[in-house]
């Protein structure tokens, strides 16, 4: 669709560090290409040899189930050789620095690096130390671009044109990289975004995010076409650093319930996972036919395949 509007358009990025760097056209192009990768997953033999000459390392300094599995599956479906690295079972425990780790891995002839790290900016740093395509799989509270791309891809299955659509993001806004990437992407596509949650979950610079803020779940659900609940990071709820009084209270004020589904019949539920059932939403809400959480997971593989393909480069390194 996008490329027909502008024949001269060419995707020219080497890395995917965040959606802040991608233009409207870049985003639409990735989403458009992802549609054609989605089809591979439904084939009897869901594997193509496109990246068989490429080696990808998955560098995970933070725990992850979905993202890591999704990337690994995407890489294997495209025929790439995959090396997995997790900080907990590596020389990082012996005190090796990030730079040394990556330079060592890189000297083993790596074409692409998928990186997740607790510090924002690590993917940017890696682009300066190695000559490989870098894909950000989450850096601190900064960006998680492939998650936002798969969210937008899933939204497009409902609403092919997202401009003017009302998207609510509910929960822990300030600690969420998913929010930041989604806002960057959704605003570029012309969607209206409201972030909703307790005041303690709002970033101090929330006004600079180009979105509206709501502290009222009912009002938000009545307004939105899609409600994306975020995971409440229970690990942040330590003694003395709590951001809200109790999980039960959070659920009462900001949890999506069956009553909400009945009262507001039009909105669709999304969640980047993993869902805390009974916190962000009632278990029945997550499993209801209004929820497209599992399509998000399937689409994640297709979107990551498209990104790996587009960043794999036209010339041999």
């Amino acid at each position, binding site marked *: 669709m996008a490329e027909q509007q502008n024949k001269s358009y060419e995707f020219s990025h080497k890395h995917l560090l965040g959606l802040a760097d991608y233009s409207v056209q870049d985003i639409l192009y990735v989403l458009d*290409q992802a549609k054609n990768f989605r089809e591979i997953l439904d084939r*009897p033999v869901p*594997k193509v040899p496109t990246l068989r000459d490429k080696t990808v390392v998955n560098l995970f300094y933070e725990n992850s189930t979905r993202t890591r599995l999704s990337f690994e599956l995407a890489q294997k479906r495209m025929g790439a050789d995959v090396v997995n690295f997790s900080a907990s079972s590596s020389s990082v425990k012996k005190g090796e620095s990030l730079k040394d780790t990556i330079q060592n891995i890189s000297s083993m002839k790596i074409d692409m690096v998928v990186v997740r790290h607790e510090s924002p900016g690590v993917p940017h740093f890696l682009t300066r130390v190695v000559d490989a395509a870098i894909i950000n799989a989450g850096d601190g509270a900064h960006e998680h671009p492939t998650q936002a791309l798969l969210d937008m891809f899933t939204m497009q299955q409902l609403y092919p044109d997202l401009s003017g659509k009302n998207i609510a993001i509910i929960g822990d806004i300030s600690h969420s990289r998913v929010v930041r990437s989604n806002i960057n992407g959704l605003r570029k596509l012309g969607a209206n975004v409201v972030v909703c949650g307790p005041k303690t979950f709002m970033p101090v610079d929330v006004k600079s995010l180009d979105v509206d803020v709501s502290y009222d779940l009912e009002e938000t659900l009545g307004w939105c076409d899609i409600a994306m609940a975020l995971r409440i990071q229970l690990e942040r709820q330590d003694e003395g650093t709590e951001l809200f009084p109790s999980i039960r209270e959070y659920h009462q004020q900001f949890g999506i319930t069956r009553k909400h589904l009945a009262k507001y019949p039009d909105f669709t539920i999304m969640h980047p996972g993993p869902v805390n059932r009974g916190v962000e939403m009632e278990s029945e809400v997550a499993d209801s036919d209004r929820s497209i959480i599992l399509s998000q997971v399937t689409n994640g593989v297709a979107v990551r395949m498209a990104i790996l393909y587009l960043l794999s480069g036209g010339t041999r390194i």
Partner: protein
Amino acid sequence: MDKAEIMSAEDLDRTYRRFAHQFIEPHDHPQSLAIVGMQTRGVHIGKRIQQLIKEEFDYEIDFGVLDVTFYRDDFRSKLKMPHVQVTEIPFDLYERNIVLVDDVLYTGRTVRSAMDALMSYGRPATIKFCCMVDRGHRELPVAADYVGITLPTHVKEEVRVKVNELDGEDAIYVVQQHEETS
């Protein structure tokens, strides 16, 4: 840039009709036949033949669309990654007689990729290949079963198959490339 018309709309119509008969001919059970058009122009050529088989013999032949980008061996020789197009095979290939359709047969690399791609959908009984123009210069040991026109060409020439659906006309041209050849 010199341009010579090799086939007109009228010539092409006769060729399409010949293909419709040829596709059906070897099959006692034409329903086992299925046509797979290769992106982009092969899709439109294949659909025409499917339509003619319907008109002349009243057989509904299954039709699929194949994009071979994922299987190509030469895409990295260019600087940008090629645009991936739709693939849609809405039927089971098992034990079917498939005819792959493309506009031009040149090095044979595309049809090699297409055979690889088809195999990932199942195991067809047979695969045949149909092209509008066979321009020579094969780099792989493949040959077409149905050929519109065999046309000896120079490597510097370009063969353009035009289809009404995309180009607003039905014709085949040979274009002489001068200095700007990539």
